[in-house]
């Protein structure tokens, strides 16, 4: 344990550890270089998925998310996570239960069955939020950690939805005046962030739509891809493995269903940061990506 490290319970979720392990590996390694130590949150489960699972029974959604929160409360440690979907479940349930006695009592009634109690003693952060926060890390520290600048690449940022919206229940401000803080973090890696039409639009995966009606879901994704391709981006980056899955595997599915090909590599910000800090594609398991990252890697390696 190093003295200056800020420690957080690292909530993994599902898609990062079970589909894109590079995100998990990169998050741990890159954060360490930024003074943030991610400790395993043992026994955590699915957040559970806000759209697909909350759609069926919000009460179970509150309770299962609360269970994950209690695990961190028992560690007496704030949670950090790398997925927008997880952020909605974990951050929002924490926020709601802290402020709504009726729901909190309901949840604690269930948790009592498994000898747990939600106390509301910790906070929840998205890792990208910590990176941008001057008090924790800040853009300059990110910039300083770069050993292999991603110069000459044009990268399209995707903010996703649940970290920023609904704005009245978040603390990131107006999403209509498109935020630019993610761009700052991308530019800090030596890459050039690019603007494209309808940047703040959804990737199309959420709310269980990907499972319910894949074609519909992909059509939304395709609209985003058209807008991204229009401005000549070399890659898309995001901070949500579910968006990543939708863009990455989605491109294969779009090619199958609509016959349109983009070959746009999709990288989680932590994967990009890993590359910029000198990690190899092998250390990031980029070969698990459905879209070949090579053209992009050739530009920087």
């Amino acid at each position, binding site marked *: 344990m190093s003295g200056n490290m800020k420690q957080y319970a690292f909530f993994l979720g599902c898609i990062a550890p079970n589909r894109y392990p590079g995100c998990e590996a990169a998050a741990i390694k890159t954060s360490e270089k930024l003074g943030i130590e991610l400790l395993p949150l043992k026994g955590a489960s699915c957040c559970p998925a806000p759209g697909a699972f909350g759609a069926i029974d919000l009460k179970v959604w509150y309770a299962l998310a609360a269970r994950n929160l209690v695990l961190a409360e028992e560690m007496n440690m704030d949670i950090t996570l790398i997925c927008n979907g997880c952020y909605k479940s974990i951050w929002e349930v924490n926020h709601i239960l802290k402020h709504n006695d009726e729901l909190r009592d309901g949840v604690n009634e269930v948790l009592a069955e498994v000898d747990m109690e939600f106390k509301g003693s910790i906070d929840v952060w998205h890792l990208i939020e910590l990176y941008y926060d001057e008090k924790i890390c800040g853009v300059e520290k990110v910039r300083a950690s770069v050993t292999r600048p991603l110069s000459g690449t044009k990268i399209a940022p995707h903010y996703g939805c649940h970290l920023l919206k609904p704005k*009245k229940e978040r603390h990131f401000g*107006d999403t*209509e*005046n498109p935020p630019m803080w993610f761009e700052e973090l991308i530019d800090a890696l030596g890459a050039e962030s690019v603007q494209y*039409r*309808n940047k703040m639009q959804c990737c199309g995966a959420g709310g269980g739509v990907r499972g319910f009606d894949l074609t519909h879901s992909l059509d939304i994704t395709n609209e985003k891809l058209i807008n991204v391709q229009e401005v000549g981006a070399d890659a898309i980056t995001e901070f949500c493995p579910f968006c990543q899955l939708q863009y990455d595997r989605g491109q294969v599915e779009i090619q199958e269903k609509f016959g349109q090909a983009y070959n746009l590599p999709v990288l989680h910000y932590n994967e990009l940061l890993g590359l910029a800090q000198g990690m190899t594609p092998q250390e990031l398991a980029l070969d698990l990506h459905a879209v070949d990252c090579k053209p992009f890697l050739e530009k920087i390696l």
Partner: protein
Amino acid sequence: MAETKEESRIGVFICHCGTNIAGSLSIEEVKNYAMTLDGVIVADEYQYMCSTPGQSKIIDAIKEHNLNGIVVAACSPRLHEPTFRTATEEGGLNKFRFEMANIRDQNSWVHMHDWEGATEKAKDQVLIAVAKARMLEDLQPKSVPVEHSALVLGGGVGGMQAALDLASAGIKTYLVEKAPPTVGGRMSQLDKTFPTLDCSQCILTPKMVDVGRHPPNIELKTYTEVEKVEGYIGNFTITLRKKGRGVLDPTEALERGIVGGGCNGCGDCAEVCPVIKPNPPFEMGMAPRKAIYIYHPQVMPPLQYTIDFDSCVKCGLCVEACGPEKRAIDLDSVDTFEEIRVGTCILAIGYDYIPIEQKMEWGYKQFDNVITGLEFERLICASGPTGGHLIRPSDGQTPMKVGFVLCAGSRDNTGGVNKPYCSRFCCMYSLKHAHQIMEKIPGAVPYIFYMDIRSFGKMYEEFYYRIQNEGAKFIRGRVANILEDPITKNLIVNAEDTLLGRPVSMEMDMVVLAAAVQPKPEAEKIRQMFGVSKSQDGWLLEAHPKLNPCGTTTAGIYLAGVCQGPKDIPDTVAQAEGAASAASIPIHTGEVQLEPYFAQCMDEICAGCGMCLQQCPYGALDLVEKNGRTVMEVTEAKCKGCGTCGGFCPGGAIKMQHFTSPQICAQIDAFLLKGEDN
């Protein structure tokens, strides 16, 4: 213990108010209860106590039973206290021998489903009122003379109309305008007015000229703010701050001994002035303005230049250009102060637009071709920055497809905006804009995105027919967002056509936002100076929304125009005339009666400590020598009857007439002890 000097003979009268009261509580029970109370001689009830037969009951009972106190249990004293006081007086009693129990507004209406609870409460309310009535004393209202002059604050169309009416009624009127060095207000910025399509300036200028011509009855004070307000109805003393304008008019020049000097409006000064800034207030920043300027060509007082000292660099070129004869420019001019005395005041301080850029989804200030309705007025106005040619700010091209976003910020509960009200004139001016586009640009099509078209005024709905017939397209749906094509600078307007049930995504050359209106920021300070309340949304509060829409709860202060709530020009002018009429009544009557709720010092108890002096916000209290002792003395003319001194006096030496400590204690005891002795 306070002794009642005379035997109490109280009459209690309970009003059914139709079913308003009788439908929610038992009148019978309350009446029977009243009869059991000490001092109550008679208790009666009636369908409508405020009606003539109802009042007759009171008058007759006073005579028949030789009553010396009246209690009416009915609506709010704020509504009918004057009515029943008059009845009490007609019965031969002093009118302050009356007390009211509010069993409607504060009982039957708010406990509609609790018969027993409401009945119990009504009984207690009568009990409390009777307790006070037993302690009431004869009081004489105080008459004070009224200054034969009035103040109108705000030089827009409402303020001008009010001032003209007052002046025509023979009242000396001070018309004070704060910001621009002219009267005219918002209306002077408009091009045409709906639904008649009159040219705004054309119908406004005669009024401006009249305001200028009306001396000696109208004293026009532009570029002037209210600094301080003292006094009360009939006798307000207002301190005005005249801001240093930097330019002397001929009269001012003469006062300084410059014969034949002063500004003649030649404009030589502006020609040489090196400072060029956007003209924000009048041209919405779309045209340049020098540091020495005329607000607009029709200004009143006429052709009067003003220096904007915020941008003036004091280079002195204008002084040189003005020359040694006129010597009109004084770069060192400072604010001057003046006190005026008036009998009544009318506030007509107008409104502002919300900063619509807060609604970022519509892209105002992000996208060149998104403008506001007021900017549209300037762009389509022949005297505006483009000479009346409507052009796109991005490239000067003529727009052929123009979108209008209605309810841009109005009827919006979201945080940050929070303007839940309808701004009331945007529908109509947007229709007018649509007409102007079709009239001036052949082939151009306006698209009006609306939720409801509120064309409620005379000939308004007909105007809506006309615009629809002329070819404007109406899309029933609120605009979700606007995106800009970065190359053409065209705008993509996204909404749902809710009648079609289909989303629309339309490319427009220009979009006009009908931004919501809101109270001026300075309204808060002004209303506090004049003692006027505000409604929940910040507009100044009228005394009664229906029965006293021009008055306020502070006697002698009246409201006109949008400062009281959004309204269009006809309504503003109508309210201004109403306010002028109301404000002239006390002046023509020549005197007003003040309620005699004055503080009185009971010299024998007063210790002369003087601590009450700091409590009084009006400086009405002084320490004086009386019979070899230092005691406090009240100047009745200054006392407004709040009772703050009486609430504080450690010795209980201050008697607040009509709200005496024994009276209030009797009310408390009556309820808590229910007649049992403590």
